[in-house]
């Protein structure tokens, strides 16, 4: 059950982002999770309801979108969507494939309401910076 540790790391990043953007309340946290990340989504949802208490995301919904496991065959160059325990090329059956998607564990975006009308200190058009 490492999902609680993952949630705590997630909430740290959410709070950091919220501070930079003068956010009063986070309403939604959107993740993109691949089956090969080792995260179980139902466990993550449960852990989030515990870990969010007392944070700026206290009332936030967690939306975790699951990404497909996609591979590219190094022999025939075909791309296939496969199951997490069988990363074989669907065309030629070769096992020498490269993962192109499916191990992600990414905080994609957060939705929020601002505490003030004025723009945040960081540039809206630039990358979100962390120090």
């Amino acid at each position, binding site marked *: 059950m*490492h999902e609680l540790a993952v949630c705590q790391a997630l909430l740290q990043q959410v709070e950091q982002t919220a501070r930079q953007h003068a956010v009063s309340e986070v309403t939604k946290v959107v993740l993109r999770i691949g089956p*090969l*990340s*080792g995260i179980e989504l139902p466990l993550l949802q449960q852990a989030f309801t515990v870990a969010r208490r007392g944070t700026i995301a206290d009332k936030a919904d967690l939306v975790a979108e699951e990404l497909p496991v996609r591979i590219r065959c190094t022999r025939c160059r075909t791309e296939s969507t496969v199951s997490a325990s069988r*990363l074989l090329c669907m065309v030629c059956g070769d096992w020498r494939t490269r993962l192109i998607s499916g*191990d992600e564990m*990414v905080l994609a975006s957060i*939705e929020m309401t601002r505490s003030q009308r004025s723009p945040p200190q960081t540039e809206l058009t630039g990358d979100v910076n962390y120090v």
Partner: protein
Amino acid sequence: MCDTCGCNVTSGNEHLLHSHGKLARTTEGSESIEVLRDLLHENDHQARHNREHFDQHDVLAINLMSSPGAGKTRLLEATIDRLAHDKQIGVVEGDLETERDAQRIRSKGVPAVQITTGSACHLDAHLVHEALHQLDLAAIDFLFIENVGNLVCPASFDLGQHLNVTLLSVTEGDDKPAKYPVMFRQTDLMLISKIDLLPHLTDFDPRQAELHLRQLANPAQTICLSAQTGEGLDAWCQWVGEHLAQSTQTRRLAKPVSA
């Protein structure tokens, strides 16, 4: 993996991750900030720092993982008996409770730091970093990090190791790689342990275990061994020795030549 922040955003999956602009309005009128950062960014940052420590001191760090009872500590004892005469070994032990494993290692004359995680089911890069402060890395060639016995959680946390080694004992199922793909997909070596028990166990086939590993697109070598009889230990010690030599050579080549 992205070199900037360690996230898993690549050209292969980027289109799946971006759904809207960096700051987009939602239908409810609230704003959306695009972040695109790995959830374990802090851990990964610490892991890179740990790896730098290892590299500065020419230490080869190996993360040893398995389910509970597969024989990690026993293998370490046998490895120390074979390697400690000309290489310096250090061990970080991860367990939920007790100092027992570290004591077993120390009784062999090897420095060992015990991390007791309490209820945590895995080691993380911060815990390992704290343990490193109790070891003299300059006096170590191999650092073995014995992770908490668990085939699930340790797979998600980079500790800064150079190599992952996963034990699969013959008393388990030979389909473990298929059942725990996150762990076995990333392993650099699969050790089939307790091979001396194989004659008594008809339903474990090392070839099947290796086949399941290949089905995860993992080319890693498999070594069958027994810490009890010594079978396979030469091949294992040769494997770690070769990787130490390789990493030392790589670092030498990478270092600028002083005038």
